[in-house]
């Protein structure tokens, strides 16, 4: 009998490898309140740091008096820029090639800027004393409007570089100019516009928002004066980068810095950068010789660390009368706040914004981005997206709708006509990106059929007619978005951070009993890496996922990596994991051949074992081979079974998706109700469908928040007016719609397991889909573009300006 028991399928199922809905390993501790987050740490003798912050948007500092603060019982020290200057740390380099004040040096440039750092025995004393630091300010003129930043008499934001004509990215046009960056062929784009039958031109603004993970940024720094070693625990999406940057800034040798990111309570881009709090905690620990904890509160988080977007995009599309796009021109003013602390790959000051031709076959395009300084917080991180990709996706998806409207075409039909066709892949876009794979028409067709798109349009027409007859006060909008992302940074030829190529890594050790550990350069913040990487290993090596520990976040033990953001974990470290597995498997095959006394080529892989071709009862399981690797290797072979892989991807990956949203709008209250939201994602090979669905739900909810209510707003005096959860909209379970998810699978041809990444897709595609739905509701009344966020008040104002309310506007002063 040659029947194998259990069967290959049964054995595969037991492994819990790729494609299965494996329950999460992390959850065991999280559901019991046993996660280990930074603020849970308590070290003997630990002190607490707190900031005195600027109440002004822009002011000169005349004097800082720390006497009263220092006299508060429990206060150990107070740091100011003057103290930091003694260790040459009053300023720090940013990831974007600029410099940034750690503590205000001479003036403050945005509200809530860090002015002094108080260190005390407990957090209450630190907070008390921070209030008592006396700062004398002389207010300066404020500018918070990026469109006015380069005016001839605009307030000088950065006195330190006002005479510099060269910035980190070339010539500066004005003292408030950061950089100019462009892509594409201006001449050919201009020519397309000259010849165009139809053009549109719209200023599309993606407002300033904030990623706002539920856990704020925080750290504990502990400097050992005897050994000269610094240990830094923190909320770091990229621990190795923090170690390298920390070493460059502090001059502590890199091998004497130990950076540890424990469990992280969400990141969404907020926890990529290096912040004043980290530097001050490190200095404070060096000064006091004791561990120092710094924990941001929510107001500090929303108003100082890592805003996102603030892109003001003047957008033009050219098309033929029958609806073929022929050209794209986008001129963007990017508000970078007071310091250019963008978290982009260093050579890309506007990130990967040139993905802006989206999913469409534009023959030519030109984009130009001018970055400017204003009296707002620095940052410019990718809030749940690859660098500036969501700005691009919002812009092109809104613009495509506007063009469809002008052509009097259905927006889905217009997209169908212009989507890149399956046979065009690999496709090189007009702005130079090589899209790896796609099947866009299939995805959009499936989405339209699933939601019953034509029927929805018929219902909408009937409702519009009823509205005109005065029979209903409700409008119906149908939003369509088709997005293409560029993620998985990145090929080192394209991407580096401060000169470090954006590869990533995995190191796998298989123990004698067939269990193992995998360490990686990425860092989960809720994505479930401990679960999914083990699934890749299970499939690749035929060892049960439950037998693999996944460890991230400790720079002493993990191989060097650039961290988790820009949907790069699966595309880069996932690939590294597969490649490391293949090295292990190749060695295991040689051991198997030796043990079975056959040639390597006489063996074939069968789920969890190598078997002799033609005689399947002669086999060695991976567990057998793990044991053998430690006592029975062929002569001349090194014992052990481990491998490391540093993966430099040959290209980015290009996930895509088709989203459709149906919204009902009450014109009398401005209340919008998402009736339906359907999201079809194609992220290539799917590792854990349960986790993918969860990521899509979460990303859509963040997109819903952004599109329907979020904004970090400044008044003209530079006051940030949305710095708490009272004013900054985070959707609760009540507002959040129910999500319908779906998928197609178009593997990436250049990725070892065909995976593309998914965590950010729903945010990238979701925002324009909601926005298009709201705009679509008002379109038949002649509206072309309504700015985000589409909260109830703003939506009511739109209805009001259209004259849909009788007399209410005057009464409310709108």
């Amino acid at each position, binding site marked *: 009998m040659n029947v194998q028991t259990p069967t290959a399928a049964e054995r595969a199922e037991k492994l819990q490898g790729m494609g299965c809905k494996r*329950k*999460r390993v*992390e*959850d*065991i*501790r*999280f*559901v*019991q*309140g*046993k*996660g280990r*987050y930074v*603020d*849970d740490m*308590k070290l003997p003798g630990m002190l607490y740091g707190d900031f005195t912050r600027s109440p002004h948007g822009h002011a000169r500092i005349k004097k800082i008096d720390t006497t009263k603060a220092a006299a508060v019982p429990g206060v150990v020290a107070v740091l100011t820029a003057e103290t930091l200057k003694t260790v040459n740390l009053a300023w720090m380099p940013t990831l974007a090639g600029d410099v940034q004040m750690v503590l205000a040096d001479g003036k403050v440039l945005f509200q809530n800027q860090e002015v002094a750092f108080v260190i005390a025995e407990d*957090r*209450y004393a630190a907070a008390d004393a921070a209030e008592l630091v006396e700062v004398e300010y002389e207010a300066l003129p404020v500018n918070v409007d990026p469109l006015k930043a380069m005016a001839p008499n605009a307030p000088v934001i950065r006195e330190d570089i006002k005479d510099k004509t060269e910035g980190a990215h070339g010539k500066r046009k004005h003292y408030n100019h950061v950089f100019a960056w462009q892509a594409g062929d201006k001449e050919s784009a201009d020519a397309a516009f000259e010849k165009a039958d139809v053009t549109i031109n719209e200023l599309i603004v993606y407002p300033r928002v904030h990623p*706002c*993970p*539920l*856990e*704020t940024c925080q750290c504990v720094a502990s400097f050992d004066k005897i050994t000269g070693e610094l240990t830094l625990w923190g909320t770091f999406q990229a621990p190795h980068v923090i170690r390298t940057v920390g070493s460059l800034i502090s001059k502590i040798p890199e091998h004497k810095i130990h950076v540890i990111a424990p*469990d*992280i*309570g*969400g990141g*969404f881009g907020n926890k990529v950068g290096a912040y004043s709090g980290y530097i001050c905690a490190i200095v404070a620990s060096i000064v006091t010789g004791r561990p120092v904890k710094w*924990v941001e*509160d*929510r*107001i500090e988080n929303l108003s100082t660390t890592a805003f996102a977007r603030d892109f003001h995009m003047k957008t033009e599309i050219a098309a033929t009368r029958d609806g073929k796009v022929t050209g794209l021109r986008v001129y963007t003013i990017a508000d970078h706040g007071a310091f250019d602390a963008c978290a982009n790959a260093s050579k890309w000051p506007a990130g990967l914004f040139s993905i802006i031709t989206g999913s469409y076959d534009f023959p030519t395009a030109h984009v130009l981005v001018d970055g400017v300084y204003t009296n707002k917080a620095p940052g410019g991180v990718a809030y749940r997206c690859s660098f500036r990709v969501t700005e691009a996706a919002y812009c092109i998806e809104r613009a495509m709708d506007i063009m469809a409207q002008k052509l009097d075409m259905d927006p889905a039909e217009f997209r169908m006509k212009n989507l890149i066709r399956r046979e065009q892949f690999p496709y090189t876009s007009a702005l130079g990106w090589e899209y790896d794979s796609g099947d866009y028409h299939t995805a959009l067709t499936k989405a339209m059929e699933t939601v019953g798109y034509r029927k929805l349009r018929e219902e909408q027409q009937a409702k519009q007619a009823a509205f005109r007859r005065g029979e209903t006060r409700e409008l119906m909008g149908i939003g369509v978005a088709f997005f293409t992302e560029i993620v998985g940074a990145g090929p080192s030829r394209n991407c580096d951070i401060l000169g470090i190529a954006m590869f990533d890594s995995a190191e796998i050790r298989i123990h004698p009993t067939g269990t193992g550990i995998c360490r990686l350069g990425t860092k989960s*913040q*809720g*994505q*479930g890496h401990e679960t999914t990487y083990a699934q890749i290993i299970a499939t690749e090596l035929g060892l049960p996922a439950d037998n693999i520990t996944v460890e991230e976040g400790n720079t002493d033990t993990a191989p060097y990596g650039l961290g988790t953001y820009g949907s790069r974990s699966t595309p880069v470290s996932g690939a590294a994991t597969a490649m490391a597995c293949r090295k292990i498997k190749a060695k295991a095959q040689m051991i198997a051949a030796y043990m079975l006394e056959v040639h390597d080529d006489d063996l074939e892989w069968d789920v969890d074992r190598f078997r002799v071709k033609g005689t399947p009862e002669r086999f060695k399981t991976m567990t057998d081979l793990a044991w053998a690797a430690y006592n029975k290797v062929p002569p001349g072979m090194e014992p052990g079974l481990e491998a490391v892989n540093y993966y430099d991807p040959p290209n980015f990956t290009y996930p895509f998706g088709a989203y459709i949203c149906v919204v009902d709008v009450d014109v009398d209250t401005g209340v919008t109700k998402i009736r339906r939201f359907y999201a079809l994602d194609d992220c290539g090979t799917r590792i854990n469908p*349960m*986790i993918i*669905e*969860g*990521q899509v*739900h*979460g*990303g*859509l*909810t*963040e997109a819903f928040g952004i599109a329907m209510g979020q904004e970090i707003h400044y008044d003209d005096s530079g006051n940030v007016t949305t710095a*708490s*959860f*009272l004013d900054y909209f*985070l959707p*609760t*379970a*009540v507002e*959040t719609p*129910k*999500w*319908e998810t779906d998928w197609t699978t178009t593997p990436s041809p250049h990725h070892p397991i065909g995976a593309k990444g998914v965590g950010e897709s729903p945010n990238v595609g979701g925002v324009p889909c909601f926005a298009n739905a709201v705009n679509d509701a008002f379109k038949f009344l002649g509206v072309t573009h309504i700015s985000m966020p589409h909260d109830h008040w703003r939506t009511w104002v739109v209805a009001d300006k259209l004259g849909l309310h009788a007399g209410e506007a005057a009464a409310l002063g709108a």
Partner: protein
Amino acid sequence: MAKSQVSMTVNGKPADGLVEPRTLLIHFLREQLNLTGPHIGCDTSHCGACTVDLDGKSVKSCTMFAVQANGADIRTIEGMAAADGTLHVLQEAFREMHGLQCGFCTPGMIVRAYRLLEENKNPSEEEIRFGISGNLCRCTGYQNIVKAIQYAAAKINGVPFEEAAE
């Protein structure tokens, strides 16, 4: 600052401590009792990460002084599992239904869901959504949290769990 003696029952055990009058309950729990399950997410009572069960009510422990909890009976996430380590049905449900990602809101969410089910054994989806609206989650989009609570309710009521039609 002068300190006051407080004593309360936390997770079935007596707990005492000396606190400043202004010490928040969340800080007392986390820093003096080392119960780091409840988290701090906002300081303004919006996010609910610090939710504990106090004398039969869900309470945001960042909005209450420790001295106000003197004599109270408190349950935190650490007190949800049985003494032998068996998970509470809600803890099991959150894992089964993928009702968590980063885990930061989870302790508050589960403790809140516990009180919700104590008050309403068989809540509708709408009642669940309203019932947890004081607890923010940034990762899950709530859909699987709702499912987890439905799953737990079904188990508590001894009826089969049927996923609501999508």
